[in-house]
């Protein structure tokens, strides 16, 4: 362990705000992108499914 304590780790030699400010925003962006992509995939799936249901309902009517 190169750090004397966890406090020293979080302080980053006085650069804590800049270092953690960088890594926190990286993490937030990655999570946000994953969430948005997942939502987009689900939405595409939903529209395709609705279209399919419409068409099968249409086929079924005599």
């Amino acid at each position, binding site marked *: 362990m190169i750090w004397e304590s966890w406090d020293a780790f979080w302080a980053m030699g006085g650069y804590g705000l800049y270092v953690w400010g960088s890594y926190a925003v*990286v993490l937030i962006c990655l999570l946000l992108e994953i969430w948005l*992509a997942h939502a*987009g995939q689900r939405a595409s799936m939903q529209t395709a*499914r609705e279209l399919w249901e419409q068409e099968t309902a249409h086929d079924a009517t005599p």
Partner: protein
Amino acid sequence: MEHLRIRWFQWAAPQSFYPLAGKLWPPFAAVAAILAFAALYLGFFVAPTDFQQGEGYRIIFVHVPASWMSMIIYLAMAFWAFLGFTFNTRISGMMTQALAPTGAMFTFLSLWTGALWGKPMWGTWWVWDARLTSELILFFLYMGYIALTSAIDDPRRADRAGGLLALVGAVNVPIIYFSVKWWNTLHQGASVSVTKGSSMAQTMLWAMLLMALAFWAYSIAMALYRVRGIILQRERHARWVQAVVA
């Protein structure tokens, strides 16, 4: 050779690319996670304090890989756009579109982490030097691509307009890369070079390279995941899609 050619075009059909992308993205995502944890461990618990920049230099473990990805993804978009123009395959435009948001995100992260590094090291969040300005232009190119393709309803026309922007905008990538050589910039030159090797300590270099590989794997996983949604949306009238969602 003839065999190989047919194979490639077979995978280029959305119908076969959809399940292929579905099989490929999870391993890339897993590799990205493992490499990222290894890079963070090396970067925060093994790499020593920098004698000039103290602990503040640890920002570069994400700053440099994010900046690399911002350029590489734009080149990948230009590559797909080029394939689209030459072979007229439908998957090309979809891949270009699938890559854009990830590229824009890495460009933003490059600018953000750069500002947070610049404040304590240079005493300023931002300067209008050639490196920073050309990276900001890259961000606008990504935004322009996304705005342009989403403003055109017909996907084929959106692909062509966006593809042209991706190809023309790619000129900016070498400008970013060589800006520190061509102009007198506040931004420092490259610490890692193909021809001259690296001027960094071994552990620092490894932390950075592992993070770069993690971002590569993440970007591939993300593009493959996102392209599935784009395929479903564009091909929603096709029989095979109806079979998938049924």
